[in-house]
């Protein structure tokens, strides 16, 4: 058992967890943040992607105890003040989701791609960097369009903030 403290979506939380508890189970079972999903048991599908200290991480590959002291953002924490994050809006506007199960992981990965590659990231790069996320519904076509559009929006947001 380990006592862990971390910040999740801007709030500090603490809990006592079994050593073997995965971060994804901590989020879903202990914190009831069920927007982070579990789609596989071999760390291949990306349904569970969250941000740990600003970087996309598969929360099924990390122990809750390892996340102690970190800042975690889950899909529930992406929108701020009731305003959708531009990447969330882009997925809706470009029909980038169907059943919605892969969607939280896709959006969290997408934000990370833009953080690393910038607002002008091209579609081929997006396709390559989605290597760790599986969607069975959309054929990826509209996910790629969504991410490209969301990247542009994020870029103009960054510019406005800079001005």
């Amino acid at each position, binding site marked *: 058992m380990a006592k862990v403290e971390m910040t999740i979506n801007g709030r500090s939380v603490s809990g006592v967890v*079994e050593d073997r508890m995965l971060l994804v189970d901590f989020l*879903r079972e202990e914190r*009831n*943040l*069920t*927007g*982070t*999903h*579990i*789609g*596989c*048991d*071999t760390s*291949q*599908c990306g*349904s569970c992607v969250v941000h740990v200290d600003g970087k996309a991480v598969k929360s099924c590959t990390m122990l809750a105890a390892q996340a102690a002291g970190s800042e975690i953002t*889950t*899909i*529930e924490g*992406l*929108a701020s003040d009731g305003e*959708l994050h531009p990447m*969330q*809006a882009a*997925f*809706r*506007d470009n*029909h980038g*989701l*169907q*059943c*919605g*199960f*892969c*969607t*939280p992981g896709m*959006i969290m990965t997408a934000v990370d791609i833009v953080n690393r590659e910038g607002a002008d990231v091209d*579609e*081929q790069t*997006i*396709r*390559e960097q*989605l*290597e760790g*996320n*599986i*969607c*069975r*519904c*959309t*054929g*990826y*076509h*509209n*996910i*790629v369009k969504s991410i490209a559009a969301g990247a542009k929006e994020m870029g103009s947001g960054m510019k406005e903030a800079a001005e």
Partner: protein
Amino acid sequence: MGIEGIGARALRKEDKRFITGKGHYTDDHKVAGMHHAAFVRSPHAHAKINGIDKSAAEDMSGVVAVLDGKQLTGDGIGNIICGWMVHSKDGSPMNMGAWSALATEYVRYVGDAAAVVIAESYEEAKAAAEAVVVDYEVLDAVVDAVEALKEGAPQLHPEAAGNLIYDWEIGDEAATDAAFDGAANVVEIDITNNRLVPNPMEPRSAVAEYDDAEDHFTLHTTSQNPHVARLVLSAFYQVAPENKLRVIAPDVGGGFGAKIYIYPEEIVCLWAAKRAGVAAIKWTADRSEAFMTDAHGRDHVTKAKMAFDADNKITGFKVETIANLGAYMSLFSSSVPTYLYATLLSGQYNIPNIHCNVKTVYTNTVPVDAYRGAGRPEATYLVERLMTTAARQLDVDPAELRRTNFVQEFPHQTPVIMAYDAGDFDATLDAAMEAADYKGFAARKAESENNGKLRGIGMSCYIEACGIAPSAAVGSLGAGVGLWESAEVRVNPVGTIEILTGSHSHGQGHETTFAQVVSDRFGLPAENVQIVHGDTDKVQFGMGTYGSRSGAVGISAIVKALDKVEAKAKKIAAHLLEASEGDIEIKDGEVLVKGTDKKLGWHEVCLGAYTAHNLPEGMEPGLKEGAFYDPTNFTFPAGCYICEVEVDPDTGVSTIQQFVAADDFGKIINPMIVEGQVHGGLAQGIGQALMEHAVYDDAGQLLSASYMDYQMPRADDLPDFVVSHHETLCPGNPLGIKGCGEAGAIGSPPAVINAITDAIGHNNLAMPASPHNVWKAIHSA
């Protein structure tokens, strides 16, 4: 949100909850006192159970019960059934072996459940399941359907001698043989349709709650058809009478067929909750369990030949198929390789004589049932590979050979039951060839050659059958249920509307498209319309969503109920406005008397229906109508897909250069959503063509049981798709809808394989066209 009616690219109403992480899937559901189930699964493909020692598991922490198959059957829980009776050609009924939700004497595939542990936590349940000792006497296994039919093969079920489930036929054999006797040319093909694992991203899950005071069960489950689940759980498995069982399918993360069936786990969780005396039991598959227990798809082996006359017109088509149904007969398994397969063997073509024989077989593998397309992909793959093979053998252009044989006049009666009602096959072929710049292919091929690459182009002109299905017709073919759909339109006193539908959305966007139909009818904003589905306590009955039926059948039921609401609203308005009913029109949210300025707001008429202060003489208050819609025919989506590939001869890697789809789905409610359905279907079909393959070793171990071993299509495996629509209306239903959910998966595999065989210059290529298979094909030539 404005008025977004039929034809609008309306953004989806359901998206907000999914993009913010507020979707509510079965595994998200938690209740007080919830326990967890873990199944003890057979590691052997075939074994006799000589005993089960539960003692160690029972003593472990948190464990409340360890239950087995004898206890389950002892409590009167019925065997799992196949709901579609198919008769062999000699008239005998299919040979269905017994399937208990927990095995009693034998296990017949790796993953077959022998016992279940109920414990306070998931971890405790899992750990205790490991401690249950099953004394297995391992038996010989057979995994290949052709092998299973051979003499001396291991036998699975006493009810099915020789592992044969049925030996079925359709069509006129003598007339077909005669066509071959007089043929100018005969083209033959041997073909295998590779076995697939559906893999919706949300694993199956069930939360069974039992209220002992009321003796009432509630089941949250990942189902495409919660009412059918309740019916079958009640009527056949005797879990609880229907009035004591509520089934809820909340947000469901993809289905593709795999979530149609009622599986052992749901039955066991319900039964065990009562038996173990706990408030609730949750079970959620991990991905390995999903691979090992979700019904698989396809797995056909076929020999076929086609006869042509001197003008290249098809005169006969003869087909022999062996279909693997796995260890047990799943719910609709018998219908897939028969009525959903052989009835589509006429393709888009005039074929005067067809004969098809299908043998279905038990093997020591996961049960096989409908997976996106269900039978129609197998038919299309056969017909369209054969057409391209024939074009090569007859030395004609593949497009021209198809055109020569297209059905041009409708209705068209095929020799295999189906009567095509509408279509324009030339239009979709032309559109696809144009979009793919078919004419420019030779130049592109030359350029690839300069780069040391092989380039190929392939097409597939598919037709499929949706709108499943006219109840009396499928009843006469052996279906155990009717395949109508129900709807209820509840207009509230303020004029907002709830639509209760028996269809179920697990990604298809019904909350949006169904609302568009209502908006279109009354001119109301979509946010005033709420779609209610997936709960047997709210919706009276429904047959659910599969076979691309929600548009053609589900929406038709809504339209029928809307007709009744409109008629009553008009009567009320005519009375209030002192006009004649025939002059009333409902438009833009207003109820008008044509040619006058007299009008009422829609909400005023609705309120009038509920205050009932001034209704026409004898009229009941309220504004709520229901309808059951039973289709009169199947619908026939059709189209043409063209795929262009480049193959690297050194590595065998095939890269899709372009993929063009031209579809005729009849009336389209929301083109954005329809395109999304096509994209997803294409990805699954291309996945089958290039990479997906469920592989068993000879001992019956599933070698491809994780995402490390079963290759799912990923973003960089696929191209951008070029998609277009060419509408001919379906005359059989009120809006002219045909259905769009499966076409992509049905039409695309032969287009891909025809392109690769074009690139490598011969027909001998096995699907999936993995780099290894393509490399072997290149080097075997």
